[in-house]
């Protein structure tokens, strides 16, 4: 029943290493693809930026996925206190992101330059995007 048995630690650590490794490469792949698309002009400029955005979203989500994986692992190994702790950390991450969405500050308007329309399309409603397009 010793929890720090190297074999058990190795299995959890091994899976976490796999998740983070694969996730990082996938994210980098998306970002590189997007940058190549943007530079070569193969697709429209928007397509390249969307690949890069997808890569960044995956990178942000990766640590949260890692916490979720740990939570499931602890749950399956009947480690309920650690499973609860993992769930708590996951909840804080989600609440923090939602707080950021709620407090959508003046960053948008101030940085609205050449890429403003694209930003607006990604992050605000379609009506706002139309307004930004007319302004720029």
């Amino acid at each position: 029943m010793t929890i720090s048995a190297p074999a058990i630690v190795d299995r959890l650590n091994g899976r976490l290493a796999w998740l983070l490794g694969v996730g990082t490469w996938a994210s980098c792949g998306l970002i590189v693809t997007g940058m190549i698309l943007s530079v070569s002009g193969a697709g429209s400029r928007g397509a390249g930026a969307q690949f890069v955005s997808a890569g960044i979203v995956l990178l942000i989500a990766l640590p949260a996925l890692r916490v979720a994986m740990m939570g499931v692992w602890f749950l399956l190994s009947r480690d309920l206190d650690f499973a609860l702790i993992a769930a708590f950390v996951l909840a804080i991450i989600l609440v923090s992101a939602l707080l950021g969405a709620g407090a959508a500050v003046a960053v948008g308007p101030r940085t609205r330059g050449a890429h403003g329309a694209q930003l607006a399309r990604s992050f605000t409603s379609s009506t706002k995007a139309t307004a930004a397009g007319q302004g720029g």
Partner: protein
Amino acid sequence: MASGIFIVPILTMFLGVDMHVAIGASIISVIGCSCGSAAPFLRERLTNARLAIVLETATTLGAACGVLLSGVVPVPVLYAIFAIVLLVSAWQMRLPRAVVTVDGSPTRGWARRLDAVYPDRTLGHDVAYRVDRLPAGLGLMYGAGLLSALLGIGSGVLKIPAMDTALRLPIKVSSATSNFMIGVTAAASAGAYFMRGAIRPEIAGPIALGSVAGALLGARLLMVVSADKLRLFFVAVLLALAVQMSFAALGVHAGIGG
């Protein structure tokens, strides 16, 4: 390692990027650095995943508070505070550390479940270690999370002394575990910054790639370097960053008018 802390000053001062956009790009690089270098530490059993998830409750709470504060606190003030914190950290690291002795006292309650074993390559055998003063460690981690979210840095430079002096972990374990935690801490604030639109793909994308590349090299290095050299290196980095932050506090002040 500690790359995030250079990105905000370079982007804002040399490339004229908006402060919030620079912080957004930097926090992405912190995640890239953490995730990119995590695998070898995990496989070597240097990372204590249980300890990490416990401390992450404090760092993510700190990050959530930092996100809320980020619009309120003036940035030059933060740079000045951070320069002081870095100096204190460097002082702590420079002092000769007491050798971790296994005294006869029985380990205390729940925190005992965080104790673990790691393989030390330079010694050639496994080393058992225990976790001391968990409440103090949690308090410091909350502060580290707060600064991480506010400044867009990993604040690994803060976490490592915290784990070293409060929790009294072996330095390789503390480096690997804090590096593991940085990604989750940064994700808590990066999610918020992304929702705000402060993360611009054309700036954050290339920086993410660079940080992953740098992290892969850094992790290989940490495996083969001895603990004493690592300690010296961290002291040097901490001092250099303290000087840099002091200039930033004054520089940003002067730059606001122009």
